[in-house]
């Protein structure tokens, strides 16, 4: 079993690593440039959308969540995200919907 996963990884992931790295740098440049363009409320959406895309790439490929042989790892990642979204989501559904403030 360990032999298998080792030989699968041994196909040299270097090309993929450098590809992800280049993509992350390009996204950073786009975020930076897009911030200076007037997009109204879409400025925040673009910035956070790209940040989420970057974070996903780092987690999946640099932190090996995609190829994780242990399924529990994926469960922990999803659970962490779920509770973070619960915290942010429920808080903001309150504060963002108070017409008097």
């Amino acid at each position, binding site marked *: 079993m360990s032999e298998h996963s080792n030989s699968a990884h041994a196909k040299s992931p270097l090309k993929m690593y450098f590809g992800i790295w280049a993509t992350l740098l390009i996204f950073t440049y786009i975020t*930076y440039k897009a911030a200076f363009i007037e997009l109204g409320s879409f*400025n925040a959406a673009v910035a956070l959308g790209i940040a989420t895309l970057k974070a996903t790439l780092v987690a999946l490929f640099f*932190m090996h969540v995609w190829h994780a042989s242990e399924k529990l790892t994926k469960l922990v990642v999803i659970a962490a995200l779920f509770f*973070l979204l619960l915290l942010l989501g429920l*808080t*903001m559904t309150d*504060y963002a919907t108070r017409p008097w403030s």
Partner: protein
Amino acid sequence: MPDSTVIGLHHEEEHHPELLHHFADAQQQRDSASLGMWVFLATEVMFFGGLFCAYLVYRHWYFPDFAAASKSIDATLGATNTAVLICSSLTVVLAVWAAQTARRTLLIVSLILTMLLGMAFLGIKGIEYREKFVEHHVPGASFSFDKVQVPGHPDQYANPHHAQIFFSLYFVMTGLHALHMIIGLGIFLWLLIMAWKGRFTPEWHTPVEIGGLYWHFVDIVWIYLFPLLYLIDRHP
């Protein structure tokens, strides 16, 4: 003693000295270690999550003041630091790969590069903090943010009290992140010493792997801090 342990090996199978007896094989031991690290990172997500939550609420309440305060930070330095951290994440995956494939020189070089990039990040951060001190944007008795225009509303000045909340969050969030970087540098120094001594093998390089997970996590936190703190409302 050493002789008896060699003879005492079960089934004459190759028993790696770093494989603990309660694990079936090296793969299972590695999986367990990284699972444990992921559980720790989940607690870190909630740790930073509280700050992000506070940030979102105040940004929602005092958006114009937050935009004005955000504009006073150097976005180019922030973007540079983002690139620096992304490069350090690349050197970290290279280090893990080098450890997996028994490339000692590449491992050592990658670890050193990671530390250099981490120190570059902290240096740039220091320049940024210095600017804030010079401009009296550090929350406290000498804080001053008078007559700063709100972006998009030339007739409107930002409320210094609300701007001070932004800078408090800025210093706590980036400071806590910087503290994680400093701890990361300590971890990587230890990894470097271990790698120098030739302790890591393709069978056992768990510290490199979970140290790498930590470094990438700190990178991800920054990926969010950058747009949230530096790029609130930049366009002229």
